[in-house]
């Protein structure tokens, strides 16, 4: 009998060793996984801290409203850039939102056929097209044909980035409206377009607005397609047919200059840009995600993923 109890002890030790080792590995992996999260958040923290720290000292009323002074002087401001960013966001929304919304309606209301499946597929692929290629496309379609840089070209390029995102989020939110709503509309004898616009869309409104705002925050930071379409300028907006400035472009141009004052202005512009973009992002999140936790929270997440 002594042998068995010895063996039992032996097994017990073996088991203990095995479990200890496994628990140790588990612990190590937990630490590594947590470290991954921290490593990813450090850059975000650093970016925000640096932008705020360096940008604050550049901010002043003149900086926000005046046109840039002569290069390297450190005078003037980024008025034209802020104005340009707002103009370009407005114009591209003007083109991109209707197309995106209608396309989303098509995919959700008529989207059960082969054509719709291929549209959905190309929509997803189009969303991932390098933005600089879209810029070149706009350059070839508009700038080269007109023979001069044009604000419309920039708006067209950005609308191309915008509409697939909107189409996707619109489709998702329309699909979440219960079919019984539509049936109720049909039972009232309403026309399909009335049902869609008055019933379905008003039920899915917040999801769609979320998608639209997220796409706006996406294009607000785009630089590459603007290089070949609106070029950048140091004057306030005067006409659609001359170059215009935008915040991301201004930041890029300033970062190329070897002066400390330019660098400071670059941080200041970055601060303005990041406040606009994170403001939209956080605002949308807070507003819609908190109001209803279920469907809308999910939608906000989806919109973010679809984005970038």
């Amino acid at each position, binding site marked *: 009998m002594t042998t068995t109890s010895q063996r039992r002890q032996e097994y017990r030790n073996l088991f203990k060793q095995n479990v200890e080792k496994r628990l140790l590995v588990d612990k190590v992996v937990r630490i590594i996984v947590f470290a991954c*999260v921290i490593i990813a958040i450090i850059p975000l923290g650093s970016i925000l801290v640096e932008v705020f720290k360096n940008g604050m000292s550049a901010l002043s009323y003149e900086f926000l409203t005046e046109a840039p002074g002569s290069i390297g002087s450190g005078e003037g401001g980024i008025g034209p850039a802020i104005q340009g960013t707002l103009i370009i966001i407005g114009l591209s929304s003007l083109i991109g939102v209707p197309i995106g919304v209608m396309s989303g309606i098509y995919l959700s209301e008529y989207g059960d056929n082969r054509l719709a499946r291929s549209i959905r597929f190309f929509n997803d692929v189009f969303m991932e097209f390098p933005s600089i290629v879209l810029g070149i496309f706009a350059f070839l379609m508009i700038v080269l044909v007109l023979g001069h840089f044009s604000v419309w070209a920039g708006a067209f390029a950005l609308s191309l980035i915008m509409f697939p995102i909107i189409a996707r989020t619109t489709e998702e939110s329309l699909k979440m409206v219960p079919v019984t709503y539509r049936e109720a509309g049909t039972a009232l004898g309403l026309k399909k377009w009335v049902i869609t616009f008055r019933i379905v869309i008003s039920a899915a409104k917040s999801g769609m607005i979320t998608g639209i705002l997220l796409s706006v925050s996406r294009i607000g930071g785009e630089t590459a397609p603007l290089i070949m379409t609106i070029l950048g300028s140091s004057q306030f907006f005067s006409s659609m047919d001359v170059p215009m400035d935008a915040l991301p472009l201004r930041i890029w141009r300033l970062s190329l200059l070897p002066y400390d004052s330019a660098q400071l202005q670059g941080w200041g512009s970055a601060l303005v840009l990041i406040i606009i973009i994170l403001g939209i992002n956080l605002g949308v999140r807070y507003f819609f995600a908190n109001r209803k936790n279920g469907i809308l929270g999910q939608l906000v997440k989806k919109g973010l*993923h679809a984005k970038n």
Partner: protein
Amino acid sequence: MGKINLKPQKPGRRPIADKLFKIGATVAGVYVLVMVALLVFQLVSESYPIWEEEGLSFITSTDWNAVDGRESFGVLPYILGTLVTASLAMLIGVPLSIGIAMFISDAPPKIGGPLGFLVELLAAVPSVIYGLWGLFIFRLYFKDWVEQPLHDLFGDSVFLFSGTPFGLDILTASVILAIMIIPTVSAVSREVMKAVPQQQKEAAYMLGATKWEMFKLAVFPYSKTGLIGASILGLGRAVGETMAVTMLIGNATGIAAVPSSLLKPSQTMSSIIANQFNEASPASLHLPALIGVALVLLLIAIAINIVAHLLVTKMMKVKEGAINN
């Protein structure tokens, strides 16, 4: 109070309004197909002169000279630069992202939610601000603390770390790219991991698995396809990224841009376009050459994204099947 109209509407009136509505929606839907077709057609036709002039050597040669009379264009260095930076970014970013996805999918929602949100905020930061931060902040630390030691240790023996660490090179650009793809890859990985049926996880726990063993036994085998898809999606993002790379890669041209060491300046397809597009005159071959670069970039990006898309949707279909059963 108006009278309630019980008369049936005129036949034909109703269909017309709805038909118009349907046509409008269809046109908007088809818009994306038209744009894709037009885009490819425009790029091909506008870059045609360069294919005519250089032929296949446009892709295989390494010299790049836009000076009048001595024009010669080869995009091989930029293709290599793009692929090297993007794959390096994937190499760094994907393990981190999968770790993040593991943590967030597993943590209690009170911790996981806000952390996941912070990681997603990384995606909201514009590319040009990554560039600015990389150029003026990150580069300086990275040069002193990572590149210099690497160079001192391996500079003579391993060709990867030869060259002078200056901070404007392939390694810096790749690390920034890695940070930029983390939100995408971790978000998709998380979705994919969520798709693993709860029963499988519980079965693993029931066998006495620790948390890590549960991931190894139940989650990874099940979500493998989706995770690969997520990483390739990240690769696609990295390939198309322009501004941050342009500001950090050092912008070498021609043969000097061939990525022979991680600590050397190089150039990617998107950065050469961003740098030179405004200098290129439409009359010379320079502009068709840059459009040719864009065409090559687009084809590579499309190929990568279609593969990623198919892998992820395949995985998600499996999920739906599992729920229905």
